[in-house]
């Protein structure tokens, strides 16, 4: 954990030296927050959501609307993004938490598509496919976030708080019960757990974190578009989590998000079809190393030295 924090705390000072740019760090941290929240659901509770972009997008729109029309300020805007993501997630979770497996996954897609469709069609609020533009970044403690350094360290602060909270949560009694439900929902019921409520809470918390990440995204890119809610982009967070090894490690989504953006920028420099190559990598990992990069690293570390 310390290594991760040190890496991102120092990133603006060395990243140009390796031919990349500090804003990439902002993007990666936002998606790590999103993916870690998503993995609370997929990796820890075993609940596959393939429409999670909905809550990411709701957070982005919620933040954008507060900054463009309601004058809530940066803190109020982010809080509203978190709440909006959480409320949207809570509503959906109320309809799907009695399901599991493929039915659960299909329902998450269906609800995700509803949110995406509303975002595209509700032009008076979301401006349709044009999206919300010119969202103000505001300032923190007198530091205007228009400056990239201020934006970076503000996002870093949120990133640290979310990582610490999620780490604590997955190692708490609640995290232990979620994992038990993933392993055997029936037995969890028969030892006295209200499985529906745990699943509902897991989804709501995950959507709440997605809302926070969406708010940060709108803050960073100063805009909010419906494309982040699409099924296509909802798949990105699934790929990041699985490629990184979220099923076996808390840190899997971190590895997955870093690899995804490195692939985008490094492979993308050579070919527009970088996602094809990333997709092939995803297929190879699912076929040959479902535990992802985290599983691979564990294997390497546990290999006896010659």
């Amino acid at each position, binding site marked *: 954990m310390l290594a991760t924090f040190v890496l991102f705390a120092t990133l603006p000072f060395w990243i140009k030296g390796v031919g990349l740019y500090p804003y990439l760090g902002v993007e990666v941290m936002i998606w790590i927050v999103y993916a870690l929240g998503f993995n609370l659901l997929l990796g820890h509770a075993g609940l596959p959501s393939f429409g999670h972009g909905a809550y990411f997008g709701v957070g982005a729109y919620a933040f954008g609307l507060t900054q463009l029309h309601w004058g809530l300020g940066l803190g109020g805007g982010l809080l509203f993004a978190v709440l909006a993501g959480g409320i949207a997630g809570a509503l959906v979770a109320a309809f799907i938490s009695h399901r599991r497996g493929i039915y659960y996954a299909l329902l998450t897609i269906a609800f995700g598509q509803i949110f995406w469709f509303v975002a595209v069609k509700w032009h008076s609020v979301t401006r349709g496919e044009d999206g919300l533009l010119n969202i103000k970044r505001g300032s923190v403690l007198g530091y205007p976030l228009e400056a990239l350094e201020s934006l970076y360290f503000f996002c870093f602060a949120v990133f640290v708080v979310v990582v610490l909270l999620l780490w604590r949560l997955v190692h708490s*009694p609640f995290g232990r*019960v979620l*994992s038990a439900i993933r392993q055997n929902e029936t*037995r969890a019921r*028969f030892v*006295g757990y*209200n499985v529906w409520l745990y699943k509902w809470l897991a989804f709501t918390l995950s959507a709440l974190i997605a809302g926070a990440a969406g708010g940060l995204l709108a803050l960073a890119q100063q805009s909010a578009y419906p494309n982040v809610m699409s099924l296509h982009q909802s798949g990105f967070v699934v790929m990041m989590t699985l490629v990184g090894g979220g099923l076996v490690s808390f840190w899997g989504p971190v590895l997955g998000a870093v690899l995804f953006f490195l692939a985008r920028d490094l492979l993308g420099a050579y070919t527009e079809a970088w996602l094809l190559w990333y997709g092939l990598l995803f297929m190879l990992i699912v076929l040959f190393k479902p535990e992802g990069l985290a599983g691979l690293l564990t294997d390497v570390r546990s290999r006896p030295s010659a």
Partner: protein
Amino acid sequence: MFEAAHLHKRFGAHVVLEDVSMRFAAGRLTGIMGPNGAGKTTCFNLLTGRFAPDRGSVRFEGRDITGLPPRRIARLGISRSFQVMNLFDDYSALDNVLVASPELRARGFSMLGGLVEAGRAGDVLAQVGLAGKEDVRAKDLSYGDRRALEIGVALAARPRLLFLDEPTAGLGTEATARIAALIAGLKRSLTIVLIEHDMKFLFGLADHIYVMHWGQVIAQGAPARLRANPWVQRSNLGLLA
């Protein structure tokens, strides 16, 4: 202590239980026997909340618990084990017991707190003969140990009434003897209801036995009396199936 009256259950056109009534007296071990497909496990499922009966009632210590969900029945002090093992496979033996403990259940919604002390979970593992295997993952245990852990998870909730569904299924002679010794030990402190195919095992432990066939109770009584029952004799020879 526990009474089921006139239970009926059908799945589609198939009637699986018909007018089944049973009483389980406190501090006694009651056995349920019968051929495959007799409705024994369905009966367990109705008594422990997995399915609601179409008709009939279930009462525990005077309280109507008909149709209550499993979690609410579990919280009243009723535990069960399963014929097809239902463990938390990625957890260690100790964590399997810990997650079923009332202490963890009481703090299950604590999101920022620490975990509960293992304390009594270790005692439960020792009780079922798994001392020294606390850190072994459930899926890495031998079949016999998994059967013992299945009972351990049910015991972790500190039940007053324990339902055991074929706890010796698939076990060899030695492992069966081990489970028999365990259940005989539990019998002193718990009310137990046991589904079992192994006649020797069941008749050696039970105070009262119900014989089921075609979704009905066709005979009941103390083991000594039932031995002479023609249904039981035929069942013993495998002729009922």
